[in-house]
């Protein structure tokens, strides 16, 4: 209790301080607060990650019952991930928010919300009490909402914010149902009760419970078809918020699932297949829609869905591994998933920071308007390129490592299992490959249209590189990515404890990571290094050879066209066209076109806008239905006194008569039955 009160006092103090100081001070203070939270929580988390988990029981209130705070290896991993991204985020934000320094009140709200968000995220990883968990869950959702709607004078921003708010409310409803179910059966709100529940109830009940939690968390994590808030929330938020949102906030959904997997120890195989299926769906669907997006941040948002899918595939095969008592599969699956959680939070935040820099420099994130920025913003461009390579899962970057783990899990699984599982394995393999390929297509498009060639609309002369305050955090992220890329084995070893948590659930002693996998990772590591050296060497050679040769600069070879203009360049739309033509049936691309008919055509235009098919079917239809149905009953409050009194009469007579009628009907039926 004391601890909680102390925390509350601190929070209120922080809020007061932020209210008092000036704009610059607000940012500084927020950064200081975030760093403090990060350091304190890391001090608990690092030992936990190494196996010394931290646990304390707080005497809660009448409402909650006792509150257990527990930081085990799993929480620790997520806490550290969260801390890293939140810290880089706030520092990047300091630079990014300079433009908005005049909006004092909004900045205040923003800073407070950011601190609260960080607190909530860290708390969620540690809290083991359903009610408090829900409290923190909504605290996170609300503060995230405030952060997203920073530019709230824009209409889209607010709409996206509300959209997000409703989705997160639905998610909390499902979580509530799950916790209610547990509380109903066991009468306790503590997480340990969930374990008891899974222990004593039937497997079916276990699966039902997990499904409730799964949907709840899937909405937050952005699994298809619960992803519909994500592509709206990310583009409208400030860059660092988008980074944090898709870097860690959606990961908390993954954390919840993993936590529940640890607690609900029932029919793992079925659960695993459920997860696997949902994940494959989101992976493929996410990237398929990502390609046709022409808003950079929206594109990245869809990629978050895709990467959540990859994480989910890892989680799924891990769970199945638990189900079929195949430790190696479990290790590889969960290892890949957990590592990809970190990786994705890294390269996705880096990408969003890059997008943010582009936005600040050009005031747009519409891909088609951009181009040639690399000449003005080389650092941003290179960092973006690195992130793009990493997110496409290409060696020697970190994205490859986690995907490699998942791949080798699948290939390891191939050896065992019946034909049914084999087909599923093949299916997931294919989808993983497809995801990789599509991601490559998507990011070649994104990077080259935005940064390469020459500018399409933006006046390139005004563009300039962003300040160090934005670049330095990006360097840090990039550095960590390279570290993971070059020393993957190290990070897998760090993951040993969290993975052990899962392997223990099937009662086996904590398994060491299989040696051949560590070897493979070692090899990948030094192969990567070798590769880098190779490139450098060749580069030097090239310089040396061509230094003596004449080098001239001319126009691009226009294949016979005398004038080459920026307008003639390939656009993002046309780059993706050959794909979108193939994938047409699965996409929803609206086209507005005035075809050229006459000989001397006047001004023509051609525009396409993409939409989410699932959203059209699940969300829009539903909302329309609701509006129609509620519309039928608008006559009630019609201002006529007689009607109002009539309602009373109807109610009374209805209550008297309807039972009688029902009784008579029952009698009749009874009579007819006895004929």
């Amino acid at each position, binding site marked *: 209790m004391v601890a909680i009160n102390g925390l509350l006092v601190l929070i209120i103090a922080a809020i007061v301080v932020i209210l008092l100081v000036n704009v610059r001070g607000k940012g500084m203070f927020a950064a200081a607060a975030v760093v403090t939270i990060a350091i304190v929580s890391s001090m608990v988390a690092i030992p936990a990650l190494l196996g010394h988990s931290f646990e304390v029981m707080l005497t809660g209130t009448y409402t909650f019952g006792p509150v257990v705070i527990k930081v085990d290896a799993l929480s620790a991993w997520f806490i550290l991930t969260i801390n890293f991204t939140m810290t880089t985020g706030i520092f990047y934000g300091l630079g990014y928010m300079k433009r908005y320094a005049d909006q004092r009140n909004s900045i205040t709200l923003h800073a407070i919300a950011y601190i609260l968000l960080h607190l909530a995220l860290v708390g969620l990883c540690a809290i083991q009490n359903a009610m408090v968990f829900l409290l923190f869950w909504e605290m996170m959702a609300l503060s995230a909402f405030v952060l997203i709607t920073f530019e709230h004078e824009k209409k889209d921003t607010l709409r996206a914010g509300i959209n997000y708010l409703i989705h997160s409310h639905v998610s909390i409803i499902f979580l509530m149902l799950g916790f209610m179910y547990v509380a109903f059966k066991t009468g306790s709100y503590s997480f340990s009760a969930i374990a008891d529940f899974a222990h004593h109830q039937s497997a079916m009940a276990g699966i039902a419970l997990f499904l409730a939690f799964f949907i709840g968390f899937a909405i937050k994590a952005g699994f298809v078809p619960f992803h519909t808030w994500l592509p709206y929330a990310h583009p409208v938020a400030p860059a660092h918020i988008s980074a944090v949102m898709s870097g860690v906030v959606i990961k908390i959904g993954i954390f919840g699932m993993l936590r529940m997997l640890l607690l609900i120890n029932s029919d793992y195989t079925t659960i695993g297949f459920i997860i696997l299926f949902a994940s494959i769906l989101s992976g493929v669907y996410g990237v398929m829609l990502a390609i046709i997006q022409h808003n950079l941040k929206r594109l990245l948002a869809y990629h978050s869905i895709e990467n959540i899918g990859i994480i989910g595939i890892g989680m799924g095969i891990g769970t199945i591994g638990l189900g079929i008592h195949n430790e190696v599969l479990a290790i590889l699956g969960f290892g890949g998933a957990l590592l990809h959680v970190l990786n994705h939070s890294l390269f996705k935040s880096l990408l969003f920071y890059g997008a943010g820099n582009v936005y600040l420099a050009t005031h747009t994130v519409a891909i088609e308007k951009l181009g040639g920025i690399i000449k003005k913003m080389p650092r941003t461009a290179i960092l973006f*390129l690195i992130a793009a*390579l990493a997110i496409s899962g290409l*060696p020697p970057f970190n994205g490859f490592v986690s995907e490699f783990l998942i791949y080798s899990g699948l290939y390891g699984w191939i*050896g065992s299992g019946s*034909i049914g599982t084999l087909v599923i394995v093949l299916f997931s393999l294919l989808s993983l*490959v497809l995801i990789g390929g599509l991601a490559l297509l998507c990011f070649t498009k994104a990077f080259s249209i935005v940064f390469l060639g020459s500018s399409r609309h933006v006046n390139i002369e005004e563009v300039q590189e962003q300040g160090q305050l934005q670049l330095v955090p990006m360097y840090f992220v990039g550095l960590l990515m390279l570290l993971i890329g070059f020393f993957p084995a190290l990070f897998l070893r760090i993951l040993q404890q969290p993975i052990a948590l899962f392997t223990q659930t099937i009662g086996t002693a904590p398994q060491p990571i299989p040696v051949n996998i560590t070897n*493979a990772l070692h090899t990948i590591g030094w192969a990567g290094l070798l590769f880098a050296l190779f490139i450098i060497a060749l580069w030097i050679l090239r310089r040396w050879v061509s230094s003596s*040769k004449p080098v001239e600069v001319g*126009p*691009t070879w226009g294949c016979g066209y005398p004038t080459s203009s920026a307008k003639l360049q390939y656009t993002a739309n046309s780059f993706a066209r050959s794909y979108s033509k193939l994938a047409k049936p699965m996409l929803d691309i609206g086209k507005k076109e005035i075809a050229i008919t006459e000989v001397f055509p006047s001004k023509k235009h051609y525009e396409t806008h993409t939409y989410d098919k699932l959203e059209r079917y699940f969300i829009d239809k539903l909302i329309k239905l609701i509006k129609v149905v509620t519309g039928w009953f608008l006559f009630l409050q019609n201002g006529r006194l007689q009607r109002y009194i009539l309602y009373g009469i109807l109610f009374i007579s209805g209550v008297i008569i309807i039972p009688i009628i029902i009784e008579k009907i029952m009698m009749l039926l009874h009579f007819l039955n006895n004929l």
Partner: protein
Amino acid sequence: MLSFVLIALASLFFTGVIIRTKSITAGRKGPGIMQPVKDVIRLMKKGAVYSQTTSIVFRLAPVVYFCTVAMAALLIPFGSSRGVISFNGDFIFFAYLLGLGKFFNIIAAMDTGSSFEGMGASREALYSLFAEPAFFIILGSLALLTGNTSFYDIFSALHLGSYITYALAVLAALVLAMIAMIENSRLPIDDPKTHLELTMVHEVMILDNSGFDLGLILYAGYLKFAIFGAIIANLFTGGMSLLWALVVFVGTQFSFAVVIGLIESFMARFRMNHNAQFIFALSSVSFLIFLGVLLVLGKFI
């Protein structure tokens, strides 16, 4: 190491053989076997012209591309000798390395800001995207057959016994060959000889490269051929003695080159919009292979 040397050697002659075959079938007195290599050397001696729209990416890309291919070559085993780099799941690394190379090719092409090169880039991206599943399924089925997940273990454990396995191997060889064609953008997917930029895929992407860079790109292409030839050869050399393995290797490489030559001289390129289906067909063929493996292992109950 041995495999790397062999591949390097093979790469020197491979394209030469192709060209020679084509000239013979065309009844011309073609260039010598070594001509392509000579071209590369000549290019490397030349100076370069760069478009003013290009950036550092354009200069860096050929180097990276070449390095990826070279690294890929390091992964290939030969007969009973491991590749320089060999670990469980190294073929995943292999595929993704080639992917990396492609990534850089594509962005380099886009860097020039030329609509034609953009066209080629988008096609290249799409085709490689479709080619990958086939490769992964084939190696998946091989892994299933042998129970191993690295090039070396797979190939050394791959003892062809019954007819069906031979059939499978041949089928796999066919698919791999096709993948090689796609990777190197030769007929029937793409025609290096064509002179109309609109119909090119790979050629149009490197329109603006010149000098050293162009040389690198060309040689990387030769190397790729040799690599795939080596893989195909490995399908059959499992458990052979070194000598026999050598013979098989050389034979495969040579016949592969000749076959390509023949195809290129007697076939025309597919229509662009047929390519996608064709490439996808490869995936389904490789799926057949997978089923065949299941049959071999008696997993059909």
